């Protein structure tokens, strides 16, 4: 019951670490009536302290890396990170650029990688549902910690 509530009310935080805005537009499309993410109980919250899932787009530049870390640290447990698109997953095609650290997993742990340039809204929904499965596992682990 408790885990069902967790999994059916994930609040999102979207952060652009240097994306071309391609993936960002697809994320905003999720909130439109066509894809309507709110039917899964997901709401876009512009505040890390209220969020459960962090959606990151774009390769992590040197300037945004500490900010990304800061946002991640402010989110309350249990939390999830979803790397949206090829750039956020691996850093391509900007790997090796003088101003880029690489993928999101170079800075914070990532739970789900979503492929695509830009990632399609359908795949984003798939990724979010996969993230929810991981969330259940995390919540169970948290429960075991509390009991131990």
């Amino acid at each position, binding site marked *: 019951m408790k885990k069902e509530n967790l999994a*059916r009310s994930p609040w999102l935080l979207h952060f652009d670490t240097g994306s071309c805005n391609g993936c960002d537009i697809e994320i905003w499309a999720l909130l439109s009536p066509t894809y309507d993410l*709110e039917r899964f109980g997901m709401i876009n*919250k512009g505040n890390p302290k209220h969020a*459960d899932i962090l959606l990151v787009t774009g390769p992590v530049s040197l300037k945004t890396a500490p900010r990304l870390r800061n946002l991640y640290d402010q989110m309350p447990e249990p939390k999830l990170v979803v790397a949206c698109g090829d750039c956020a997953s691996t850093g391509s095609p900007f790997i090796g650029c003088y101003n880029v650290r690489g993928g999101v997993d170079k800075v914070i742990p990532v739970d789900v990688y979503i492929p695509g340039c830009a990632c399609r809204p359908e795949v984003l929904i798939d990724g979010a549902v996969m993230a929810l499965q991981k969330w259940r596992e995390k919540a169970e682990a948290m429960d075991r910690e509390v009991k131990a």
Partner: protein
Amino acid sequence: MSSVLEQAASIALWALTPVLIGLMLGLDRVITARLQGRKGPGLLQSLRDLFKLLSKKGSYVNSSQMAFAYLSLALYAIAAFVLITGSDVMTAFLLSGVGSFLMVMAALSVRSPYSHLGAHRELMQIMAVEPVVMLIVLSMGYVSGTFLGSSMDYVMFLSLPLAAAAMVPMLVIRLEKSPFDIATAHSEIVSGPYVEFSGRTLGITKLAHWFELAVMFGILLLLFDTADQALGLAIKTVVVLATVFIIAIIDCSTARLTRWSMLRFSLIFCLGAVALNLLVLYIIDLGVLG
């Protein structure tokens, strides 16, 4: 014996208040989604959100922020209890007012500028709402000759129609709906006074807010009290559903206004409407028209 049963029933109703308000907010979200051409979440979504927040790990900036949030929850819950058990309506209203101020104190006790901005806007909302609701409660006292909720057992709406109408914009403000979602203004100052609350602590503030909504809706529903319990329940259900529907339509069809236009609207039109209603009643009572 029946009074003991009635008291037990009203205490049970008070314990169920968060569930009822959660269902009402869920209905509001369903209606809003349908009006926007979306499928939207289920009826239980607001309750799920609350349970999720309460089961997360909470964090707070300092202990005074936490203390103010808990105190605010306690005062709102006591205010709802006083109102639902049919005691003094004015006491319930004043207690809920103190609860609002404590929430502002909680927002001011951290150093975030967004939290402070939200707190100041919340104060503006309190300035817009409290005088109008205060006058509505006073006029309820004038009409029925008492502030005891249990003694107000006839339809006061018939003598105070403008008071019921003025309650709708007040509920729009307290529900943080457009055009008067000044304090929590999403995409502008994120979530105003709640910006520094997180996880379980945010759940506590949400629960406090639900009890406050219970007091506001309780004052509205007192205007529709009847001696016949079953008929009264039916009327009140219809009133709540109609109010939620009207507020959803207002929310979907308007853009956010400034805090000054909120103050002007509330203190001129809403306060004026209730005062006019009271003046007409006074003239009728003087017997000038008869």
